[in-house]
């Protein structure tokens, strides 16, 4: 074989391998869409067909929205993830700036604590935080869903590393203009930190939109359910009888993040692999 032939053979092999892998990875998504498009009678059959004979996607969506208050779950998901991210920024940004650019007693200790806190897995603190919230009487509320995640040690670390790279002259100039230290954080540092904040925002929103463990622990009320809890409870109520609407509900829960991902892939991959640093 000449090198040219070899490279063609290799190229074909590469695509063949990657395509078959891709088909396997996509299979659950395709099957979800396929099932959501089928009427009941086509779902409970042993013959495998991906394209439905009669198209029932809209009916299934309608049933899902009707039976499972999907709008409410989406709204809750939006409120919770947005509040968490806003509070994380509000708390982490000043701390990150102080750790990066200001000298104060205990700075090194505090930074060591931040690094340590990054390593604490969320499951580890669940029981004491649950007991604390029980004592405070705020279980089963938006607050219970939001408050535990207002502090992101990882966010502080990430923004501190970013601020470290910013020139001191910029800050000095702002001080000359009479801007206070807090003013510097929001008016000078924040605008320059948008790329890093976007990555962190994606990381935070994806993590909390998809979180199941904590909402499951603190929630009782149906009207507070976040998307994962909502779709899980819909599944429990239907108990394996109504797969069309259930798959339609799964599409609705998955769609916001997947659509956002497809629109801004690079940013999303950047943001989510931030956990790699963790």
């Amino acid at each position: 074989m000449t090198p040219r032939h070899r490279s063609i053979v290799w190229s074909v092999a590469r695509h063949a391998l990657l395509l078959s892998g891709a088909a396997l990875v996509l299979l659950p998504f395709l099957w979800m869409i396929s099932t959501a498009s089928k009427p009941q009678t086509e779902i409970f059959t042993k013959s495998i067909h991906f394209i439905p004979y009669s198209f029932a996607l809209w009916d299934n969506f309608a049933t899902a929205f009707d039976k499972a208050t999907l709008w409410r779950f989406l709204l809750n998901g939006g409120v919770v993830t947005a509040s968490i991210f806003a509070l994380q920024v509000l708390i982490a940004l000043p701390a990150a700036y102080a750790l990066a650019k200001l000298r104060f007693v205990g700075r090194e200790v505090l930074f060591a604590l931040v690094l340590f806190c990054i390593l604490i897995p969320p499951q580890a603190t669940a029981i004491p935080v649950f007991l604390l919230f029980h004592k405070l009487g705020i279980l089963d509320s938006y607050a219970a869903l939001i408050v535990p995640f207002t502090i992101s040690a990882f966010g502080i670390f990430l923004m501190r590393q970013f601020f470290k790279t910013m020139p001191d002259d910029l800050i000095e100039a702002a001080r000359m203009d009479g801007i206070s230290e807090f003013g510097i954080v929001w008016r000078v540092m924040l605008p320059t930190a948008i790329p890093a904040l976007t990555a962190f925002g994606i990381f935070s929103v994806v993590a909390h939109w998809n979180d199941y463990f904590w909402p499951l622990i603190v929630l009782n009320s149906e009207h507070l359910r976040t998307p994962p809890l909502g779709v899980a409870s819909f599944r429990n109520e239907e108990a394996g009888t109504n797969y069309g609407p259930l798959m339609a509900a799964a599409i609705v829960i998955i769609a916001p993040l997947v659509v956002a991902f497809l629109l801004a892939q690079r940013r999303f991959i950047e943001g989510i692999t931030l956990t790699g640093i963790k």
Partner: protein
Amino acid sequence: MADTLTAVAMPAERDTVAARPSQTRSHNRTRPALAMVAPAFVLMCLLLLGPLLGVIALSFTDYQLGSPSFSWIGLANYQDMLADRVFWISLRNTLTYVAIVVPSAVALGLAVALLIESGGSLRAWYRTIYFLPVMATLIATSIVWEFMLHPQFGLINGLLHGIGFEGFSWLQDRRTALYALCVIGIWQALGFNMVLFLAGLVSIPRQLYDAAEIDGAHGAWARFRLVTWPMLGPTTVFVVVITGIRSFQVFDTVHVLTKGGPSKSSEVLIHTMYIESFEFFRSGYGAALTVVFLVFVLLLTLVKSALANRGVHYA
């Protein structure tokens, strides 16, 4: 230069009139600095460090949610745990899960990354497709998997019947439930690992491949063995540890699909901890289980930093 200048200038200044302004200025910045870190520090103590110490302390008590009092019972929770059959099943299942998911998800992630990097076309497409399961809400995709694994109407058994095999009741069969969950775990973790490996591959200097070529390393395997694999060392350690920690945390799929069943065959640590703490409200015992989980996660983290310090680069 600037440093020496200020060092020379400072004592002179301090002795003269400039002393007061410079002091107040630095004072002015310590106060805002402390005000800036205070909320973060308080919340860190309240929501992370405190609860971490709390869970350890709790594991030495018999506290149950709602009971008016509790007492220190030393290691009794741990003794109960070691005597409990469910704990050992749960631990064994978790370790089995980790032992299957970590190597598979790491090897597949690496294989996909290498395949994507080895050619020029459709890179972004493949990357997007393989990354999709990472993004998608695991609870929702778990429910899709459940339907695919349905004994009668599922796609998997349908395909197996098509090629003449007997199917399984995957999630309802104690021989297969845990392995079915492993497959979902691998499916979800693969794309994340692929992206980390892609980043690692891009950072390998091209000259190394040229140098290896000159030294007689011909063919893809020789290049991989002599350049790619050693240079990916730190990335690989990292990916293994991350996947390991995440696999120890496995909960969502278990809770939605099997509840640890049938007959405990897919019971895992965090699920046992959840049931004990939040369904039976045996907080003390749940805390002891959490501590065991923490020890494993800590071990993995230590392995990572130990290997990172040794410079796996040249291993």
